[in-house]
């Protein structure tokens, strides 16, 4: 697999005020090699590839491309050299069509008509069907990624950089992507693959460079290592998976029947006839690709969107027409996905944010007056119990890092002795150690007798903590099934399969 050297990076360093993003990073990629760049959030992966793509200038260090000195000052130069990049987000224009989006990423695009036919040709060749005339805003996440990949392929790249490409795909879509990448590699294109999903890296990549806090801590051949070994290299500590106690299930605490809601969000997905029930002590995991009704389901369960009285029952009492505070009083707490602006008010202090959701269940308000002493104690308790790293409870929510704020908002809900917990994306953007702590806390509450609904796009997470598994697909929920005995293939089909990818002449 090791051909001639394509890109060599040596001693690259980049510092931002207060953080060293990359420190003395060196590695090589050979032609036709699929090279993994592995690391946790904030390990410096993104900064490193931005330097290779010419978006960021390194402070020190050198790069060589095919033996020549390579110092791109802007992406244009990188593209001219033969480096192409598929971004994690931020690089498509929703109101423009596929061909226009592709043209924007090319140096010298041919006239639109010719470009359209080339897009069709290349997309068929690589099994990624695309209609050049469609608006990108109407495409699914998987289709959008195809646009980015096609955009790169049309430039005949020597090195293709992919930043977390599978986070928005169903397992079947991942399979198709990997097939495309292997075909590319066999044609001599090197691929730099950034991810923190270890199993994927083990199946796809030839070599791996592992980054931790901006430094290269190890290089390895992923096929020869276990996922666990690589995870420990990545985190730098021994990981303990959450402990789950076998527990007896209690009575049904949350019962949802025939829940249909029009989405209050522009471009949102309406919920269609959703029904499930969760017993005390049970964790129901709800999977699905983003934008299939997750946000709407949380709104309907938390009470932000009201429905008919008997569609949502908490402990047998109809609550569908009640708002969030009534539902909190009845024992249902919820933590939405968006931390800043939905779960927490960005410019208010942690104490004030603790009050906003804890007032009802913790009795922090009496006769219209706030008991600040009690509220401050409540907030301090959350900070202590959930290991929130903050200078104090007086700081604004916006000042906390994403992971710390997530620990705070999840901790705030879990500290209210809830009977029913609804959480959307509990560990989104949180590092591995904190994620393990949050999952453990969720399991502990379930063990104490809470009914838990976890909505997540992270399948590994759901399989780890859930007892039963269901998937949201275009606003419909599949029937929940026990996690034990469920295969990845079955899960993929529950999530909607490959979203029409198997149709050969899609949209043509």
């Amino acid at each position, binding site marked *: 697999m090791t051909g001639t050297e394509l890109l060599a990076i040596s001693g690259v360093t980049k510092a*931002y005020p207060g953080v060293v993003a990359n420190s003395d990073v060196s590695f090589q990629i050979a032609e036709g090699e699929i090279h993994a760049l592995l690391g946790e959030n904030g390990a410096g992966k993104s*900064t490193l590839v*931005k330097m290779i793509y*010419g*978006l*960021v200038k390194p402070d020190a260090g050198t790069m060589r491309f095919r033996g020549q000195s390579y110092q791109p000052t*802007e*992406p*244009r130069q990188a*593209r001219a050299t033969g480096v192409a990049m598929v*971004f994690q987000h*931020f*690089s*498509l*224009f*929703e*109101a*423009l069509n596929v061909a*226009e989006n592709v*043209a*924007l*990423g090319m140096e010298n*695009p041919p006239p639109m008509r010719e470009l359209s036919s080339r897009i069709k040709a290349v997309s068929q060749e690589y099994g990624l069907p695309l209609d050049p005339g469609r608006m990108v805003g109407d495409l699914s996440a998987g289709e959008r990624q195809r646009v980015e990949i096609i955009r790169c392929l049309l430039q005949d790249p020597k090195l293709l950089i992919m930043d977390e490409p599978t986070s928005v795909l169903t397992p079947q879509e991942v399979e198709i992507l990997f097939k495309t990448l292997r075909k590319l590699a066999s044609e001599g294109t090197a691929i730099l693959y950034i991810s923190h999903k270890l199993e994927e890296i083990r199946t796809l990549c030839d070599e791996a460079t592992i980054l931790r806090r901006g430094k290269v801590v190890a290089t390895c051949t992923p096929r020869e290592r276990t996922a666990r070994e690589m995870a420990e290299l990545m985190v730098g500590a021994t990981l303990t998976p959450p402990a789950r106690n076998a527990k007896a299930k209690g009575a049904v605490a949350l019962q949802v029947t025939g829940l249909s809601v029009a989405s209050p969000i*522009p471009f949102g997905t309406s919920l269609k006839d959703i029904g499930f029930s969760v017993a005390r002590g049970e964790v129901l995991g709800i999977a699905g690709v983003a934008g299939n009704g997750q946000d709407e389901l949380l709104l309907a369960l938390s009470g932000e969107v009201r429905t008919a009285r008997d569609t949502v029952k908490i402990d047998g009492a109809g609550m569908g027409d009640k708002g969030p505070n009534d539902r909190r009083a009845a024992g249902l707490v919820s933590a939405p996905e968006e931390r800043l602006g939905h779960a927490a008010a960005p410019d208010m202090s942690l104490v004030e944010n603790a009050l906003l959701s804890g007032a009802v269940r913790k009795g922090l308000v009496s006769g219209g007056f706030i008991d600040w002493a009690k509220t401050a104690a409540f907030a301090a308790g959350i900070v202590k119990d959930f290991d929130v790293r903050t200078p104090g409870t007086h700081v604004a929510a916006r000042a906390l890092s994403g992971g710390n704020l997530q620990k705070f908002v999840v901790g705030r809900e879990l500290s209210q002795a809830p009977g029913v917990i609804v959480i959307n994306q509990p560990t989104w953007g949180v590092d591995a150690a904190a994620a393990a702590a949050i999952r453990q806390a969720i399991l502990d509450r379930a063990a104490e007798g809470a009914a838990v609904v976890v909505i997540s796009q992270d399948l590994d997470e759901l399989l780890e903590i859930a007892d039963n598994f269901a998937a949201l697909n275009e606003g419909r929920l599949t029937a929940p099934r026990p996690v034990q005995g469920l295969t990845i293939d079955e899960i993929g089909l529950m999530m909607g399969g490959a979203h029409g990818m198997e149709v050969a002449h899609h949209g043509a």
Partner: protein
Amino acid sequence: MDIGGINPAILIASLMVASVPIMLAAIGELVVEKAGVLNLGVEGMMIIGAICGFVLAVYSGSAVMGFVGGALGGAVLSLVFGLLTQFMLTNQVATGLALTLFGQGLSSMIGQGYNGIKPPATTALPLGPLAEIPVLGTILFRHDWMVYTSILIIAAVWAVLKYTRTGLILRAVGESHDAAHALGYKVVRIRIFAILFGGAMAGLGGAYVSLVRVPQWTDGITAGAGWIALAIVVFASWRPWRVLIGAYLFGGITVLQLNLQAAGAAIPVEYLSMSPYLITILVLVIMSSGRGKAALNAPAALGQNFHASR
């Protein structure tokens, strides 16, 4: 031929003239907004264009020089807005409003001593036999050259936005500056050029008011035309040819109310004078009510400041 004391051919001909200032200012603002910038200082840039054009035309004795001066004046003022919003990241709405107030004050100061002077005339384009065609000749072929130029500018903006790479990049910047930046486009530079174009067009429109429509200098000569131009951009849902339609519509109402007054209609003058503004409000309410298709055509990054953080 006359209906209620109004000759339709002359009415249409005069509405074409009346709508030139708002059409020019609106097409300029359309380009600015397509690049994702909301410049509410159109009124200020127009009135600066009006006085700069007037002064230059009086000194040079040439109407053409006057229009050049108007465009330059508007562009220079818009550069103030560009520097503040694109480099110092000030709030676009507040900066735009301040620009209008500043422009009105500055124009009034420059205009001291220019009251009562007559500027050189802007000549009609000699179209020979075409102008002799009955009715059609009156409507279409007896105008000054700026009327035709303004329509050509609309066509040019439409073609550039739709068919050229420059237009595509401009639209891309207005849709998502983060994505454009990630692909290596110079967001701030592109926006500054768009703002300059918008300023020049507003200045050109202003110069048309002081050199052709009125033609003399008085304080506050543009009288809210800049605000109507802003409304037309929304009314047109950011499409160039609809700017033309919108401008003719609003220009038509203005001309109609003047004609009705002259014809001695039984409606009080005040109601007629306020009618263009009332209809502007009405149209805006209708356009933006319900998340119709028109509302969805707004550039996604409109009014958001861009800062390349990493």
